[in-house]
């Protein structure tokens, strides 16, 4: 009964909430009314937009030494999570069977373990920094903590079910993914999708004024 609910109805509901929520949020951001810039453009905004999407991967020179730990932990977590999501053998199989109808080469087990370790260590460090640093603590909301904890739980349940021997563990992982998908559009997890338009918008604004960013 619970297995059917998790594999069936709840899974479908979470997918719908995720898809509709993310689309609605993205469209509302893209089509939001903004004040018209009446100034004469010094340069085209497009190169600035494209450039900024990539240059922001590197921290600003003046900041780098002060935020070393956050940079290292951030990259560890995001790259590790990306590898786990799209190159873990069970995920490649799942995406092939449930959504795409095609697959790609999954990473070997040892690479999976190392990616998971990178992701866990990075996430732990980032969340602890959020809790322990007075400035980060002040600007963090309950939603940010929920997002971090939910991400951790999804990763943990996935790794605990790695042996693929117990359906209970797989169901636990799937259930946590469903909660994650439902929470996603209403939280700061949306930065997964918004970081590109956000950077592009800033870059376009700078580019139009001839500022290198």
């Amino acid at each position: 009964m619970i297995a059917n609910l998790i594999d069936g109805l709840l899974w479908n509901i979470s997918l719908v909430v995720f898809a509709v929520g993310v689309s609605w949020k993205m469209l509302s951001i893209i089509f939001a009314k903004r004040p018209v810039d009446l100034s004469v453009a010094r340069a085209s905004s497009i190169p600035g937009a494209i450039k900024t999407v990539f240059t922001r991967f590197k921290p600003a020179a003046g900041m780098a030494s002060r935020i070393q730990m956050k940079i290292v932990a951030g990259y560890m977590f995001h790259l590790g999570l990306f590898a786990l999501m799209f190159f873990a053998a069970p995920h490649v199989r799942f995406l092939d069977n449930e959504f795409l109808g095609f697959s790609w080469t999954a990473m070997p087990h040892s690479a999976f373990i190392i990616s998971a370790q990178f992701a866990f260590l990075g996430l732990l460090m980032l969340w602890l920094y959020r809790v322990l640093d007075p400035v980060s603590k002040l600007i963090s909301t309950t939603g940010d903590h929920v997002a971090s904890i939910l991400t951790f739980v999804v990763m943990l349940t996935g790794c605990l079910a790695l042996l693929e021997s117990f359906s209970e563990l797989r169901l636990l992982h799937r259930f946590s993914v469903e909660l994650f998908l439902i929470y996603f559009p209403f939280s700061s997890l949306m930065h997964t999708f918004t970081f590109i338009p956000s950077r592009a918008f800033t870059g376009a604004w700078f580019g139009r004024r001839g500022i290198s960013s």
Partner: protein
Amino acid sequence: MIKFVVSRQLRLLPGLLSVFLVLLFISLPQPGIADEHQKVEGISNKNPGADLWRNVRQRDQELLGSLKSNSQGSSQVKSVDSKMLINQQGDLWARFRMEQLIKYGMMSLGGILILILVFYLLRGRVNIDGGLSGNMVHRFNSYERVLHWVLALVFLFLAITGLTLLFGRTLLIPVMGHELFSVIASSSKEGHNLFGPIFLVSVVLMLIRFVKKNIYAKGDLTWLLKGGGMIGKSHVTGGFFNMGEKSWYWLVILIGLLISISGLILVSPNFGQGRVIMELSHVVHAAGALILIAVSFGHMYLGTVGTEGTNESMRTGYVDISWAEAHHDRWAKECHEKQLIVSAEQYAKLQGRNPINSEDSLSLEKNQ
């Protein structure tokens, strides 16, 4: 007429039912009779191979007894231990694990917890003489605190999953049954293996970060002889880290490295290590972890309810100057000399709180 026939048949029903039950009972197998029958005519179905294996085992034991080490035979299989028919040390290891490690491990951890409880009931919380001043001094930066908590959280996770695997058969199976325990044991094993290397990385980072401040210095022995102030009434002197903290640090580093290396040997059995190395690694891993867990109970106690003002250091990075003077007087003196002390109001601002109505101001008012 019909009514009469039916009622007559109904009267016969109990009798017919009784006959049926008697017949049923007779037709069932009678255990007492069968057992007796088996006892009389039991046959001895002896396994013809049993004697051969018994002889092989006996021969190996004799060879071991005459100090010729584990006997080596010949085999076409080219792999580790393939020439060894019976590993006698495997029995020793299994017996040690089941009869000593689990039993004494549980007793040690339970004993330490009881000792701490008794100590707390007798001594209570160790308060700072004259109370906290409200004036603070910076002790640990964000990176150091993050590092401490990463290590602590990973250690706790490893301790819980490791103890589940070690004591689960004895403690958890009787409570939750085999089926649920198998799920928990499987997930504990996966989680334990996954987080183990993160613990190693944290230990190495901890070693690099704090090694300079943890080298033993003059005065540390006095601290030890006076039991960190628990024995006698005179004040014990300490630097940035006192003797107790330094010893805990080195215990974490050395035993942490030992259990990490032995854990890596256990989790990667495909690097040519034989059974004996695996068994030894297991013993070192379990014994080291039990020691570290037992001592960590003391560390957690002293860092939370045991001593006033200690947990601030790893929460906010600041400690009260009165706390520093009580536990780390040489370092506190340095802080005074370098004028590193911040007032309660400044501290509240640094923590992003309103100095008026902040907890620090209130506690300061109380102390005054």
